[in-house]
């Protein structure tokens, strides 16, 4: 099974392409549900935790997803694994070398030990801190029980080192190694993670941050302290991890949404600061599927930067929305002593009752001591800076903002062989879909859907080609306008965080409304029913993946390749 997976992981197009030939297509998204090949009943019952007040659909009780299951470290005594260590900061200069090893670790969460993964035994992996324009060498060693690779998310590096098996390299087999040369042309916050069965490897702990420091001392406004927060969630039932699909992702409809909130790999984030302290948070959403709406105890948050650059203008906001893979750099000033809850607050939909319900998950707390922070950056924090350098650089792209799209994609889904109860429920539930599904309000249906039954689609409007059949070539140095429409009339529309490797892009308009405050991005959220215009600075030659960063959607085919010639 592992060997077969190794071919596809990133581009698992072969099994899906074979299956797709048998799938039907129609305006309600190619449903063919009259049979359930491989669907099995499990007398042990369903291990999936349901949201409070949301019953399981009786027609699904006892079913389990088709195919086998997988958990890391099968046959290994968990107690003998090394305990996961906290993240270490690794400062590297130009030409330095880092050995990065993916390995099994023991993590203790809510008092239970689990066999999971870590880079160099750390969860999250080492925080790599480098100066802008540095090039480092990373010797990656795969010591886990799956093939793997490392993708340097957001970094505009040499194509060979992008870490996208099926496109830029072969997967690294267990026991194998691969050498990456990682060049950092842009200051900012980045992250690294596998591009092989991300639904498993990333979810089990293989991720880490990179901070690229600008040579400019005033690149950001002054802050008293800096804190990295990698947001993640983990799905467990009473006593174990919910297993993963052996041959491909389960939870293929909505992606795996965890029920334990983690910050830097641990529940219950705690931070202690001084009164008046300006704390800089480097936020990264490493979750498979969850979109966050994070606030800091009602304190205004200053948004400074996102994926690939600073914003043109800093803004004060009440909360920060992060789709999977997105990053934001924010400053928060804790003016008064006390305890501030960091929460993820959303309006969830209870599909059973047909109602919205507020849901608030506490990610952690910031305790503010009475002693004053020194120096006092209150005045600097109150100043919203205009980053002239960012605006000047974007100015040369503005003439392209209103041009006709060069490429157009429609996002959709096809399904086959889902349980009849799922089909019934979802067919009559299509009267309304929220722009963003913040929680998994239907975990029973979601769990039972696998990448064998669900095929998420990027469709080229011009040719009708889908996913890896799309063959886009653009010239190096061209500016490409890509319009993406997320079809709300598909069988199960859902938001998609679309990520483009190796380039940078601007979100120039959403639903025809121009974006007023630009920032360079590598991942853009496309809500249900929305049309988003992206302007791609196609300056980095090579073959680059374009895909949904919900790990299970990627594993269910939602990917294409952009060739920059």
């Amino acid at each position: 099974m592992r060997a077969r997976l190794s071919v596809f992981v990133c581009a698992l197009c072969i099994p899906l392409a074979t299956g797709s030939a048998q799938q039907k297509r129609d305006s309600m998204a190619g449903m063919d549900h009259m049979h359930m090949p491989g669907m099995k009943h499990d007398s042990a019952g369903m291990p999936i935790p349901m949201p409070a007040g949301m019953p399981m659909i009786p027609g699904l009780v006892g079913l389990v997803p088709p195919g086998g299951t997988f958990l890391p470290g099968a046959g290994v005594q968990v107690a003998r694994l090394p305990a996961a260590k906290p993240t270490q900061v690794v400062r590297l200069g130009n030409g330095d070398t880092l050995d990065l090893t993916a390995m099994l670790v023991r993590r203790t969460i809510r008092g239970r030990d689990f066999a999971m993964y870590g880079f160099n035994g750390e969860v999250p992996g080492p925080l790599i801190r480098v100066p802008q324009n540095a090039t480092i060498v990373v010797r990656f060693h795969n010591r886990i029980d799956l093939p793997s690779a490392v993708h340097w998310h957001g970094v505009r590096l040499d194509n060979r080192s992008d870490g996208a098996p099926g496109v830029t390299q072969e997967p690294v087999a267990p026991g194998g190694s691969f050498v990456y040369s990682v060049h950092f042309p842009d200051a900012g916050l980045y992250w690294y993670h596998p591009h092989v069965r991300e639904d498993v490897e990333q979810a089990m702990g293989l991720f880490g941050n990179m901070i690229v420091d600008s040579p400019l001392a005033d690149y950001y406004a002054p802050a008293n302290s800096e804190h990295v927060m990698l947001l993640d969630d983990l799905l467990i039932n009473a006593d174990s991890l919910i297993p993963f699909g052996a041959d491909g992702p389960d939870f293929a409809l909505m992606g795996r949404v965890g029920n334990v909130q983690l910050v830097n790999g641990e529940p219950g984030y705690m931070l202690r600061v001084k009164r008046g302290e300006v704390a800089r948070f480097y936020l990264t959403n490493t979750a498979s599927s969850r979109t966050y709406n994070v606030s800091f105890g009602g304190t205004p948050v200053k948004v400074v930067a996102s994926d690939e650059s600073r914003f043109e203008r800093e803004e004060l906001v009440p909360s920060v929305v992060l789709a999977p893979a997105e990053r934001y750099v924010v400053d928060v000033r804790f003016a008064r002593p006390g305890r501030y809850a960091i929460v993820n607050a959303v309006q969830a939909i209870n599909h059973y009752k047909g109602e919205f319900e507020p849901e608030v998950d506490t990610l952690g707390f910031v305790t503010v001591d009475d002693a004053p922070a020194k120096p006092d950056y209150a005045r600097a924090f109150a100043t919203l800076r205009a980053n002239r350098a960012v605006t000047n650089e974007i100015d040369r792209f503005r003439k392209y903002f209103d041009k006709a799209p060069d490429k157009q994609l429609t996002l959709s889904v096809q399904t086959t062989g889902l349980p009849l109860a799922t089909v019934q429920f979802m067919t009559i539930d299509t009267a309304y879909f929220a722009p963003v599904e913040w929680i998994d309000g239907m975990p029973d249906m979601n769990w039972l859907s696998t990448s064998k039954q669900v095929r998420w689609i990027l469709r080229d409007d011009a040719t009708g080609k889908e996913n890896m059949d799309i063959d886009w070539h653009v010239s190096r140095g061209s500016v490409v306008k890509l319009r993406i429409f997320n079809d709300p009339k598909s069988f199960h529309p859902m938001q998609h965080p679309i990520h483009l490797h190796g380039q940078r892009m601007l979100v120039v308009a959403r639903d025809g409304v121009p974006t007023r405050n630009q920032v360079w991005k590598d991942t853009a959220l496309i809500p249900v029913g929305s049309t988003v215009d992206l302007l791609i600075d196609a300056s980095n030659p090579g073959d680059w993946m374009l895909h949904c960063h919900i790990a299970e959607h990627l594993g269910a085919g939602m990917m294409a390749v952009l060739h920059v010639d």
Partner: protein
Amino acid sequence: MTGVSAPYCHPEERSDEGSAFRVDRKSRFLASLGMTGMALLIAAGPYDIPLFATPKAPAANGAARLVFAQSPFGIAVTADGHAQYDVQITVSRLPAPSSLGAFRSYVAWATTPDLQRWDRLGAITNGTTTVGHVALNKFLLVITAESDSAPRTHAGPTVLHGTSPSGWLQSFLNHPMFRGITG
């Protein structure tokens, strides 16, 4: 058809025949109209609100479109997670407000389904006007004639109204799929 309309029929208007209900012609027509209207609403898309005229301005018609408010993020939401929209309202054939009484303006409101909370969005005229923000999960969009363009409360007659797409969220409490479950 019968299965859809039956729960909404007055008991005197139906007679049991086996497990199905029989409805009179008027109920059937109204139910059919309702289903058509719902189908149109669904077809309109997740950000569109068709507006319906009241007898106060029977010739008026219009539609509204919800557009995400400007935000540095991929979607505009409040700190507690409510989506934040600007509302683009396009109307035509609204009569002069003064033709309805001592009124000078038409004003758009967003109100919760229980009508307890009314948020003034702004004054509108024939043509397209963008007003905002709305940050409610489910709401009704109501256009009233008012004595000025920024009244504190709604007081004049309603001329157009519509329901947010989220208002079409359905309860499955009584669906046969969940039969026997008390939730």
